[in-house]
């Protein structure tokens, strides 16, 4: 019975995805239901997915990370800008930068005792400043032709970024579901005090989650840079909101302790299908932004209402006992 309930809850992302696919299939079947269009969707969501994975991990542990968009932009800038020193150096620097910002976020939240979203808002501002300073507000263009393979190449029939994302998906799934560290993340997010009394290091869990989130935003930055073969300060503006929304669709909660990486992936897929379908139907950009915004607000509002309901149910259970 419990399993069934859990399945039902997790299915909300799937239902949304199915509805969207059905709607666009009916609306524009000639292009939507083609192999090349599915490849388009796959390439598009592969750029967002790492960030959503990171955001999901942070939400599970009870935090929130607003800095992911800025980190992605800076990592993209580094991955392009440092190519004269060799592409491996540039990529490693981009990933290391993401992880470093994550560590700083974690330290600010644990040692500095600053509320997660305020701390990451601060680092977002600093990192945005770094992006502006580093790019001098001009787009950077890549010099290494082989670099484009990571974002645009193919392995067999599959786009490279999708393969990378699937590898990340499996790795994070194993981490969250089948390792002690992963279960500890849920424990910390679910009940801070119980986790502490159970001998779990809260600080280590938080710093670990933020570091992973920063690193994954770095991965997203590298993939975006490779895909566009350029980087600019314009990247990643509404990325935090999109990442949080996708994670919430995937069943994560702003209160922590909940969420699954597979459902989060379906959440990204749903948002990807949505923008792709709107493009195909020729909906103007402004309207698309508006629709996007309405959906994001709706998701946050529904999450809040559902949380309120869960709390009330929990309170009722306690009374009936």
């Amino acid at each position: 019975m419990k399993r069934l309930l859990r399945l039902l809850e997790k299915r909300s992302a799937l239902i949304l995805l199915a509805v969207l696919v059905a709607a666009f299939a009916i609306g524009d079947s000639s292009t939507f239901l083609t192999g090349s269009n599915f490849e388009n969707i796959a390439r598009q969501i592969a750029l967002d997915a790492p960030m959503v994975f990171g955001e999901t991990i942070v939400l599970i542990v009870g935090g929130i990370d607003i800095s992911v968009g800025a980190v992605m932009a800076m990592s993209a800038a580094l991955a392009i800008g440092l190519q004269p020193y060799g592409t491996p150096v540039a990529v490693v620097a981009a990933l290391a930068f993401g992880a470093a910002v994550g560590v700083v976020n974690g330290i600010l939240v644990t040692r500095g005792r600053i509320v997660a979203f305020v701390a990451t808002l601060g680092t977002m501002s600093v990192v945005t400043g770094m992006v502006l300073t580093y790019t001098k507000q001009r787009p950077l263009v890549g010099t290494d032709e082989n670099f484009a393979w990571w974002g645009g190449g193919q392995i067999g029939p599959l786009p490279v970024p999708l393969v990378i994302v699937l590898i990340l998906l499996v790795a994070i799934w194993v981490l969250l579901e089948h390792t002690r560290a992963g279960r500890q993340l849920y424990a910390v997010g679910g009940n801070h005090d119980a986790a502490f009394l159970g001998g779990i290091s809260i600080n280590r869990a938080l710093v670990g989650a933020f570091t992973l989130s920063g690193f994954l935003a770095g991965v997203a930055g590298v993939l975006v840079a490779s895909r566009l073969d350029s980087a600019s300060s314009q990247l990643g503006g509404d990325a935090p909101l999109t990442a949080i929304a996708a994670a919430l669709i995937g069943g994560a909660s702003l209160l922590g302790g909940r969420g699954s990486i597979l459902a989060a992936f379906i959440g990204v897929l749903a948002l990807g299908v949505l923008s792709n379908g709107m493009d195909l139907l020729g909906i103007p950009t402004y309207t698309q932004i508006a629709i996007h915004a309405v959906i994001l607000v709706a998701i946050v509002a529904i999450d809040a209402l559902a949380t309120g309901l869960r709390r009330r149910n929990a309170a009722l259970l306690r009374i009936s006992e």
Partner: protein
Amino acid sequence: MTTSIKTAGQDENLKPGLATGGPERLQVWLGFLRNNTALLLLVALIIAGSFASPVFFTPRNLLNILWAVSILGVVALGQTLLLLTCRFDMSVAAVVGFSGIVTVLAQIGGFGLYPSIALGLLAGAAVGLCNGLLVLATGANPFLITLGTNLLVYSIALSLTHSKTLYATAPGFNVLGRGQLFGFLHYSVILLVVLAAVFEFVLRRTVFGRTIFVTGLNETAGRLSGLRIQMTKLAAFVLCSTLAALAGIIMTSRINSTVANSGFGMEFDSIIAAVLGGTSLFGGHGGTLRTLIGVLVLGVINNLLVLLNVPIEAQQIAKGTVFLLVVWADGALRRG
């Protein structure tokens, strides 16, 4: 998250009443520091600035700083009211652009000076009402909700202007943003100071103002005492948005034109200014006169960075760093 914030507020509130034992002197010192950090910082910055640049401490430059911060200041006043209730508004950035656009479109459409300004303010108030109703009805995190409405209002502003610059047409409109009293003091500066003083009075001396503080400190206690907490929260959202709209109109009047993204970054800057001034991020502590000082600190920092030839992009790094330092110090001092 909210619950932990509330308990922190309650504990804080109990402390002065329980001033028994402990290192009281330290408490007094910390209290003094906490209450005057922004002022000390401002004085230190002005002294440092006078040494660093010969241009800095001239009447003209100081008046320029005042003029430069007067728009952000109005936004920050509204943000302060919301922060006091332990809430935020990230949509002020879009509202600044949106209200200017509505005002200019009204002028183009044949409305006179005052009706067009009224329409601009009304547009802001409407956004605030939506924010407030959404947050209150769902109990959702105001930060994320207003981040979403920010995007929504921005997209509306974009579609109204088709991403182009609009020019104001009403005669006399630019007096608000460019006009000067006695030829040196801008009306917008006077407006900011008057608004700050009025809201400080409202906060300290009216039931509405006191209810705002209670909302930030202990909502449940306020409700049980028969205060209209929900209405107060809604009013705070509407006021915040309306003040952002006023700032947008002043900005439009100053440059006689408007674009959709003219408020870019103001959501963040207004929160920084309020927190710099000493308004707590967790509600219940602060005031609008303090925010005035916070805005001045930001203005002086910006001005000094320009005078010292620091690249304009680096200002963002400085602002973010100052913000993190202030938030950290705010928390550390409150715990200490």
